[in-house]
């Protein structure tokens, strides 16, 4: 009985000691987390700014990301085209559409007559796709999604490559489907 009480007392004392120790350790760990987290963020910030300063082509700390600026050429021309305007040009067959989404997405459905030139494949397929296109042809690039960066990137690339009449139909594939306009499947054109 006496031995049992002694063991129990010792176990309880040990348990309290462990709890106190854990509490102490815990407090240290939480406070460590706070100051280390803050120091880590500050260190990363300083490192990032230093690397950026040393870069030959330094990225400005704030940039102009408005759609208007992104779709304006250095000459001041706007590249974006309205859906209604694109629809009219499609009906008149006076523009060539280029689908900048992936080939898989293109094959599932695209604007009738559109060529497929995914931005992902532009290095490999640019010549193949554009060899029959005259430099003054009105080209309308499109992709899917509000950001639609692929069509903007391709449009700027085509301008660089000497195509003088390039426009971007923002979020084109979504707009085309919303407008219930004809859709073609497969890859006969590309």
């Amino acid at each position, binding site marked *: 009985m006496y031995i049992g009480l002694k063991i129990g007392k010792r176990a309880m004392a040990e348990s309290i000691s462990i709890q106190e120790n854990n509490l102490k*350790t815990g407090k240290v760990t*939480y406070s460590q*987390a706070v100051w280390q987290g803050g120091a880590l963020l500050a260190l990363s910030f300083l490192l990032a700014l230093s690397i950026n300063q040393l*870069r030959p082509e330094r990225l400005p700390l*704030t940039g102009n*990301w408005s759609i208007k600026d992104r779709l304006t050429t250095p000459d001041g021309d706007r590249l974006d085209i309205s859906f209604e305007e694109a629809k009219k040009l499609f009906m008149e067959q006076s523009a060539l559409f280029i689908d900048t989404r992936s080939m898989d997405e293109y094959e599932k459905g695209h604007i009738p007559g559109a060529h497929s030139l995914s931005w992902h494949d532009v290095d490999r397929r640019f010549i193949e796709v554009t060899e029959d296109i005259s430099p003054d042809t009105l080209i309308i690039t499109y992709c899917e999604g509000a*950001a639609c*960066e692929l069509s903007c990137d391709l449009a700027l690339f085509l301008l660089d490559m000497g195509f003088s009449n390039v426009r971007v139909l923002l979020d084109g594939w979504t707009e085309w489907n919303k407008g219930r306009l004809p859709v073609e499947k497969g890859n006969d054109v590309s």
Partner: protein
Amino acid sequence: MLTLSARFILGGAFVYASFDKILHPAAFAEAVYNYQILPDELINLTAIVLPCLELVLGIFLIINFWMPGTVVICNLLLITFIGALLFNMARGLNINCGCFSTTAVESSMNVLTVLRDTSFLAISGYLLYAIFFYKK
């Protein structure tokens, strides 16, 4: 051993993810812009700082330095990444993840991207448990 593996896997992933973004800040800024979450004024700053934060986190995880702070930031960062991915998938934005590469070669974000980040969060969560709770 498990903690060591978790540190190396997560640390390696963070270091690997940071390289391309540090080398191509303009392309990464484009990827940040495409998420359409941050105000325009913060896009470049995020594109400059975030890759270095990933690099520092990755190195600290590997060398086992400042672990409480490192692991807390890792968890917060991964939760933010997953939140941003889910938010944009829910609103149907078709953009590149920009997670490991700034080039268009990386496929658009999808459920697998979220699962990959969730598996990293699981590892990071385990490290959080190991540091803050397991010792007790």
